[in-house]
């Protein structure tokens, strides 16, 4: 029944299928180059076949791609390249000039060993998939997730990090210091008699004080420092690469700066002072909770000693019953 085909089926499919297909021999000479490759690269099969791939396309990442292809010859095993690690192998234009969102075609590639009778790879077939749609969708999703995570990490009133983020950040700073060495400090500070501010001037005034103090402290931070609101009128500073004496000097400056200038709310001058407790990472700490505990102990010593002061943690403080 079957009439002999009018054309070679496999050859025609390879030529027209909407994925890039090309074949390299062990010298990286192109053996096959389908229409997808030709149309996107602007180089016809006649121009490319028989030539070295790297001579035809000098912009290819030669050392890396050579290694990848050689591993296929060597191991007789397929290999993959994902756009997530390398956006593209060939810099092709994408097919979404209108919907856009990318300035090149994202590509996934699959490298197949073409085995001869004896079972060893004699050539490598590279299949290039256009992954632009997936990449754009995934990038949008990633941005959305980043926005969500950013929002969920922020304190609504002051815009600085919230407790949830601070706990995570402390934990990761702790792990980093433990793994790579170095140190960092943590400062815990409280606005003194904040309840009185709320009771005397109202909650709007209290909010204004929180926002204003946050603004002043933020101005003094280095870009790597982290500020967050731990709760109520309690704030945390994480100072990477900073030993305790550095944290002490820095905290002192903050304390003096805040005490020096009252917060103005509706023409009312509200004096504000802060009490601070600081501690630094040490390799013998069992976990990051030790930092919170120690800065808390130091903070309570500051409060017990009359507020508006800075205390650095020392083990002796643990015994002192300094809780106000």
């Amino acid at each position, binding site marked *: 029944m079957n009439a002999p085909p009018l054309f070679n089926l496999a050859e025609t499919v390879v030529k027209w299928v909407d994925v890039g297909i090309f074949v390299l021999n062990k010298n990286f000479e192109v053996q096959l180059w389908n229409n997808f490759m030709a149309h996107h690269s602007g180089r016809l099969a006649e121009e490319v076949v028989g030539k070295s791939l790297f001579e035809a396309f000098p912009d290819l990442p030669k050392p890396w791609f050579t290694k990848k292809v050689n*591993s296929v010859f*060597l*191991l007789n*095993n*397929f*290999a*993959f390249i*994902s756009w*997530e*690690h*390398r956006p593209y192998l060939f810099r092709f234009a994408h097919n979404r000039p209108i919907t856009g969102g990318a300035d090149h075609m994202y590509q*996934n590639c*699959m490298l197949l060993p073409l085995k001869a009778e004896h079972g060893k790879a004699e050539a490598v077939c590279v299949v290039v998939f256009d992954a632009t749609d997936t990449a754009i969708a995934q990038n949008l999703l990633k941005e959305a997730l980043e926005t969500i995570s950013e929002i969920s990490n922020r304190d609504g009133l002051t815009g600085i990090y919230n407790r949830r983020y601070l706990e995570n950040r402390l934990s990761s700073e702790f792990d980093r210091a433990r793994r790579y060495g170095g140190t960092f400090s943590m400062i815990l500070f409280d606005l003194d008699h904040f309840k009185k501010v709320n009771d005397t001037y109202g909650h709007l005034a209290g909010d204004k004080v929180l926002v204003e103090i946050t603004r002043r402290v933020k101005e003094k931070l280095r870009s790597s420092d982290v500020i967050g609101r731990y709760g109520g009128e309690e704030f945390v500073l994480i100072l990477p690469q900073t030993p305790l004496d550095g944290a002490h000097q820095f905290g002192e400056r903050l304390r003096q700066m805040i005490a020096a200038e009252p917060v103005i709310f509706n023409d009312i001058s509200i004096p504000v002072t802060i009490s601070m407790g600081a501690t630094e990472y040490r390799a013998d700490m069992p976990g990051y909770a030790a930092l919170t505990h120690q800065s808390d102990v130091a903070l309570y010593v500051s409060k017990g000693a009359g507020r508006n002061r800075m205390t650095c943690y020392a083990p002796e403080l643990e015994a002192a019953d300094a809780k106000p």
Partner: protein
Amino acid sequence: MNPSMLTTDQRDALQELTNIAMGQAGASLATLLDEFVDLSVPRIRIVEVADLPAALAELVGKNNLVSAARQSFYGHLRGEAIVIFGEPGCQALADLMGFEGDLGEQGETELLLDVANVLCGACLGGMMEQIRNFTDTGGPAELSFSMPSLMARQVTAGQLIDSKRVQWSHALLLEVNFTIKNRDFIAHLTMLMPEEGIDKIRAIVDEFLEAF
């Protein structure tokens, strides 16, 4: 019989099949890294998916951080292979592959995926080769593989798989330690398969037993 069980004979046969395949995986890894690779005798068992997180935690240590890559395979067998790397392994691999200093997250991921791909391809490819040697039923023993992707980085083994979300019932757990010279490098290979995949494995193993 409990579907998750293998008879002693079946387990021994499967062990033998995977020993050879694992040997090939080890050899491939050695070629890729250009280092001598030592591997332990694979320990093999079938576990129910519900027990998988606990089993993995037991394999790699409850509190140790691991990274994992996954890859699907289909054809003669269908399932998903997961390669779990112990934490020190990543840096050791990077050193071996000649990456200096900080590889960056992208580079490290690419490296993990390359190694996972080699282990899965060699191990499953090796198994298929064994199967082709003694069987001629059930179609050609060939497999296709999907692109590998990263499952997780730096998590504890218990967090790796949420067994409630896994739709397949059983997992073939293959534990192999690949050791490279004096370095800490441990990889665990796990294969998740649907019910019929496990049945097929059992049928293959039975055929293997009859052939010898």
